[in-house]
């Protein structure tokens, strides 16, 4: 039997996994020097896609006797693959062409919102609730999700800080010109980082609707959870391990937003502010410590990489 605390823990681990995966993927993406302003749009798009894929797979595969859990998992993976393609696309054009990372990112954000609605809305209209396509509310599923996201985080950490490919990714983020002189093929390296990064963002987005909220709505795109993950990633210096406590705390904060409000009788809108204020407070806190240097953004983030300029 799952008691109250058990359920709370389950929802918290789902919240953690969502925020962690999205922030982790985003971090990997940006560490390679490509500015990721489409994050909120892509996040919303992946919630819509997850709903679409899951509904499709459930209606077509379960009749063949495939376990519903497998269908939902497949939907998550498929979502990740689609977003990974977007990541590859971004990495390619923003490295090869001398164009503004910001403008492309924000445009894609809007496009992501729009396509997300296109993907999710018909399902929502047809079935009303999407809970039937979500992951089962089962402690094993939640624990597995938690473990898998942590494992992904550890692997990413190992890759970034103990292998040459990790050094290459970070080199591209710091100074692509110098990286190239050192022997990095910048666009190839960014393809790897951005593809993998956006895969995780997509999977995180699918977990958001299919595990954590078990609900999808056209208006979700104004919630700004993608931006929220963006902020968390930044606050944690885009570091896979430091991200863990951050994602934990803020996942919990978002999850318990409602209960905090109920317990202390806070007005809805004031309660809504809490996680956001906490995020700023946290950044301010570490900003006054020695950790600051570790948390500096990549120096080349968002800068146009154009080969014929003098490399300084």
């Amino acid at each position, binding site marked *: 039997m799952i008691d109250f605390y058990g359920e709370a823990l389950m929802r918290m681990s789902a919240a953690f996994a969502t925020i962690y995966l999205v922030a982790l993927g985003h971090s990997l993406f940006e560490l390679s020097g490509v500015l990721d302003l489409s994050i909120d749009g892509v996040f919303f798009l992946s919630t819509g896609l997850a709903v679409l894929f899951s509904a499709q797979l459930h209606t077509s595969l379960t009749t063949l006797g495939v376990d519903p859990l497998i269908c939902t998992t497949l939907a998550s993976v498929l979502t990740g693959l689609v977003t990974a393609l977007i990541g590859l696309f971004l990495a390619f054009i923003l490295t090869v062409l001398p164009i503004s990372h910001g403008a492309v990112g924000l445009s894609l954000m809007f496009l992501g919102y729009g396509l997300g609605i296109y993907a999710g809305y018909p399902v929502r209209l047809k079935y009303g609730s999407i809970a039937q396509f979500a992951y089962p509310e089962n402690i094993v599923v939640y624990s597995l999700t938690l473990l898998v996201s942590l494992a992904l985080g550890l692997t990413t950490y190992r890759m970034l800080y*103990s*292998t*040459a*490919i990790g*050094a*290459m990714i*970070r*080199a591209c983020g*710091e*100074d692509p*010109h*110098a*990286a*190239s*002189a*050192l*022997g*990095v*093929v*910048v666009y190839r390296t960014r393809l790897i980082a951005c593809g993998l990064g956006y895969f995780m963002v997509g999977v995180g987005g699918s977990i958001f609707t299919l595990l954590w909220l078990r609900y999808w709505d056209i208006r979700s795109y104004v919630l700004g959870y993608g931006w929220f993950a963006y902020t968390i990633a930044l606050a944690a210096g885009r570091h896979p391990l430091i991200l863990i406590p951050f994602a934990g705390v803020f996942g919990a904060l978002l999850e318990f937003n409602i209960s905090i409000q109920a317990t202390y009788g806070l007005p809805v809108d004031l309660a809504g502010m809490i996680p956001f204020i906490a995020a700023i407070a946290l950044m301010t806190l570490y900003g006054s410590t020695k950790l600051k240097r570790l948390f*500096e953004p*990549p*120096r080349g983030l968002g800068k146009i990489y154009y*080969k*014929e*300029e*003098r*490399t*300084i």
Partner: protein
Amino acid sequence: MNTGTLRRVVLSINNISKTFPGGITAIEEINLDLYEGEIVALLGENGSGKSTLVKILYGVYTPDSGEIKILTGDKLSRVNFGNPVDAMKHGIILVNQTPQLIDKLSVAENIAITLSTLRSRDHSGFTSISETSKLLKEVSESTGIRVDPNEKAYNLTYSQKQFIELLRAIIVNAKIFLLDEALSYLPIAEKKRFYDILYSLKNSGKTVLLITHKIQEAFDLSDRIVILRKGRIVGVLETKNTTVDEVRRLMFGETNNKYIINNNWSNPEEEHVIEVEDLAVRDDHGREVLSNITFCVGKGEIAGIIGVAGSGQRELVESIVGLRKPIRGKITLAGVDVVRKGIKAVREAGVGYIPDQPLKQGIACDNSIVENIAIMFSSNPILINWDIVKEKAVEIVKNYNVQSKSIDSPVKTLSGGNIMKVIIGKELSYAKQALIACNPTRALDELSANNLVSVLKYKAHAEKLSVLIASEDIDEVLTISDAVYVLNSGRLIGPFQPSKVPRERIEELMVA
């Protein structure tokens, strides 16, 4: 071509030209063959196209026309490099004029990148960082250059970064080494070792193309000397059959001996413009790199501080101008209490500053020459009088012989030496009371360096400017200074009068 005594061509450059946006033709119809087992020196004044040529060979720039052929197996085949990785895979390695290390990565990580790129070719997979550290230690032992593989690159000085790049070139075991002003600033001992390394590379059949501004170095090392002037090759000489004067004439044309250094030493006045008392300073790591530093520089005096790379010059000048907070001590500069008042007051008092990292603290490369000058020479607090500023810019460009299309060109389109000239020109024109400079002649060609020395002497002795120069170049310090100090392991020794103390004694003090 048959075998035997004939040396083979390893790299053949045919009709290469490159014009940059804005219409600057950097190099034009270059034809040059490089043979195995030779050291070729590439000389030319600032802006003559040396860096552009080697960057093309390394795949950084794409040539507009012409072709490059490289020896693969037994015959020369045409190559078309899209990026430096392509060049590296063909056995070419470049050590840049400005070090190209990634600041936030450790030395080992920087090197691991290169190794991994090259190894993935023979499928031995990714290189681990710890493996690279081990390799680095070995090479560092065999070359005698001390490196800490785990040190972050941002903690290294300019010259230390260059050692690392040289080590990298040696580790990857290339066939053709392109060295863009990489040896000029090595400390004496290391330089000797590197000369030996280059000889042994040559003897094992490798090819070295060496860019240098020190003509003597070219004569010491090379078999052939190639001279570039305004983007064209104006001479390919056998080193043993030519003279320094011949080379100078080809490099600079008729203007050859326009500048003569006048060594009219005058006694400095009593009044002190720079006073440093019991100064102690930390580096970026928090280590105390300087302690008990006490000295003063009189009005109209030129003081030189010499020390090997990383002995604290950078931290010293930064704290003197107010960019770095000392742990303790007192600094007075042009009447300003530096520790309390900081850089703003120092600058307002009329102090010029040429930093150790010129591209970081000395200039904004994305902005034009005139904009860089405007922010220092505009007295009105709100508006800029562009007429006056432009006049100033034209004057600086002319006086310091900056080669650029116009004063509105972005600084980043200038050659390394010309960027340095803009910095020097603006800081020297700005300095009314004192000039604090780090390695001011670095990257300058001989003529420009001599010009600078004579301007400095004039400013000091006739216009009573007080000058402090921190440098890693012993010749630079000895020719410029009225008084010389040696900085070693954070302590200052001196002053000496350059004419009274033998050069060997100073070299000894530097490394003791």
